[in-house]
């Protein structure tokens, strides 16, 4: 078993052992990257900036092992990869029953003609083994079927129960190699789980993998909680909790459950969001009816007031370089989006369309700001360039609100209440092109999604 796994592979001499030391910190270790042949970018490439993309047919074989236990894990890994790629809308996994060549026969090189015959453009093969001590070792390869080329490969190691994360990392590697964009499958979603009557709605923070697996509650529902947001750099969230009937911004470590009130504000704080380096939180502090934006340095605890205006100023969001903040304000008479320097200087309005604009969220790529728009009683999710040009609306509903970005800035998630019934609230993901709208199945009504960065 081990001999077959470790048998030399034609392109193994191209393996670059990268970042081994850094990668073994977590439960999941990236052991090596197996690069494709020198022809650099083969012709198999997905252009995802166009509106409508014909998904490419991809064959994902069960990851092979001669042992029954490891085979079962290999089968599950292939299934998770397949579902990840399918949900992206860019791939069409081919039914395994159409496969001609069997995984056990592909340890060296696939018979490309077998895969061309079923119209697979890309092929994923892999092997899995359970090492002594129960650790999982997985190797995968992505092939360009028509060019008969090896494109990319990875070796990953993890605890046996972390096989899902391995699958997501493989899916991320495939997505990245074929689209040129970063992946977003090895991520999590924190959201607000809702139940009970609207007048006394029970809201609990919940977390799940981006594909809906590994769900668990983070809070017990005794206190109203709203608007969780992920740190871009750590597994921390910041959110609003009404603990003790005192609405305050909290900081919480997801893994340890440790939480603390952020700052010493003698009144309501809300609308928190991390700076891109994770070292600051911008939030809103309401005093005597007036809401202004403040930032707080999480290390020095120094607080800086950024807006001083009798209007409502809230929902701050940093640009990815940290130099600017977009926020919403009614200083011009109605709720609109503004951009200012992250020190509060140079406020300029950026939304000028018909209606009200709120909940700005700056894309991690920096090129767009997502927002919620209310016009003529309808709610919309849209994107706009930071200079206010090229507004596009990509979703609509009785209530759609609270966009959050996938770490690659190509996909948005938001929540939608399709009907007047609050129990219809659900999480929806959509490409920024407006294509590929998908509902995430949750066990309860769901709102306020927050997309994590890629898990380290």
């Amino acid at each position, binding site marked *: 078993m081990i001999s077959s796994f470790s048998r030399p592979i034609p392109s193994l001499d191209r393996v670059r052992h990268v970042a081994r030391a850094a990668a073994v910190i977590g439960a999941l270790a990236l052991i090596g990257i197996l690069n494709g042949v020198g022809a650099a970018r083969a012709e198999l490439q997905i252009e995802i900036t166009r509106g409508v993309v014909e998904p490419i047919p991809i064959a994902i074989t069960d990851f092979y092992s001669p042992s029954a236990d490891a085979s079962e894990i290999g089968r599950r890994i292939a299934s998770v990869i397949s579902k990840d790629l399918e949900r992206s809308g860019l791939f069409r996994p081919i039914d395994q029953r159409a496969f001609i060549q069997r995984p056990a026969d592909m340890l060296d090189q696939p018979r490309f003609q077998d895969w061309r015959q079923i119209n697979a453009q890309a092929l994923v093969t892999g092997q899995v083994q359970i090492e002594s001590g129960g650790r999982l070792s997985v190797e995968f390869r992505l092939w360009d079927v028509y060019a008969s080329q090896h494109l990319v490969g990875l070796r990953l190691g993890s605890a046996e129960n972390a096989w899902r994360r391995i699958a997501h990392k493989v899916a991320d590697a495939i997505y990245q190699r074929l689209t040129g964009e970063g992946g977003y499958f090895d991520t999590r979603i924190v959201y607000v789980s809702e139940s009970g009557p609207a*007048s006394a709605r029970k809201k609990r923070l919940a977390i799940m993998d981006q594909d809906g697996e590994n769900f668990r509650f983070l809070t017990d529902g005794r206190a109203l909680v709203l608007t969780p947001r992920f740190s871009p750099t750590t597994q921390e969230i910041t959110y609003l909790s009404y603990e003790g009937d005192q609405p305050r911004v909290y900081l919480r470590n997801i893994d340890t459950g440790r939480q603390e009130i952020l700052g010493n504000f003698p009144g309501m704080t809300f609308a928190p969001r991390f700076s891109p380096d994770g070292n600051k939180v911008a939030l809103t502090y309401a005093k005597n009816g007036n809401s202004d934006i403040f930032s707080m340095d999480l290390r020095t605890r120094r607080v800086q007031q950024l807006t001083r205006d009798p209007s409502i100023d809230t929902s701050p969001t940093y640009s990815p370089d940290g130099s600017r903040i977009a926020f919403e304000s009614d200083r011009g008479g109605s709720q609109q989006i503004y951009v200012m320097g992250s020190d509060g200087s140079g406020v300029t309005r950026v939304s000028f369309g018909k209606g*009200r604009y709120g909940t700005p969220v700056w894309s991690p790529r920096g090129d767009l700001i997502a927002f919620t728009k209310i016009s003529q009683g309808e709610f919309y999710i849209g994107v706009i360039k930071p200079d206010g040009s090229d507004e596009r609306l990509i979703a609509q509903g009785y209530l759609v609100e609270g966009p959050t970005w996938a770490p690659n800035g190509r996909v948005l998630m938001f929540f939608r209440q399709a009907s007047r019934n609050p129990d219809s609230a659900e999480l929806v993901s959509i490409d920024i092109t407006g294509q590929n709208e998908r509902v995430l199945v949750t066990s309860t009504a769901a709102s306020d999604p927050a997309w994590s960065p890629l898990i380290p």
Partner: protein
Amino acid sequence: MRIKWLAPFALLAILAACESTPDESAATNGQTNESATDGSSGDGVSESTVVPGSQEDLAQNVGDRVYFDFDSSVLSPEARQTLEGQAEWLKKYADVRFSVEGHCDERGTREYNLALGERRAAAAKNYLVALGIDGSRLDTISYGKERPYALGHDDSAWSQNRRAVSMVQ
């Protein structure tokens, strides 16, 4: 059904909401409400069972809430009248404290509504202070759109939900 923000229609709805006393609207709502059903006698509530200085007393005999126009925290003449009654009532019960809760309808975004609810609660509180009530007896809290009173999804329900409610502490 498409919702349009027809100002005259909304105004009518507000006036209608203001004309009915809170306990009436609770009764017609046919739903439980923390302030209106606080009394110990579950049925046939008569004035004689109302504890003076209680939430029930305030709601039935003065009015425990004021209503606002869409996206506004301006106190209407009716709202001022209700708050003047609350100020007199607070002077009568000098050891009573209020938590003034600001609320919004569901047709705004969450964080904006938290700010707007805070504005509404502060508008009510500040008027009470202007009428001579010590500000230290008055807390404010905003619930934004998180705690609707009327559970409908039309202009009538929304006008009842745009409110500041004085809760006896």
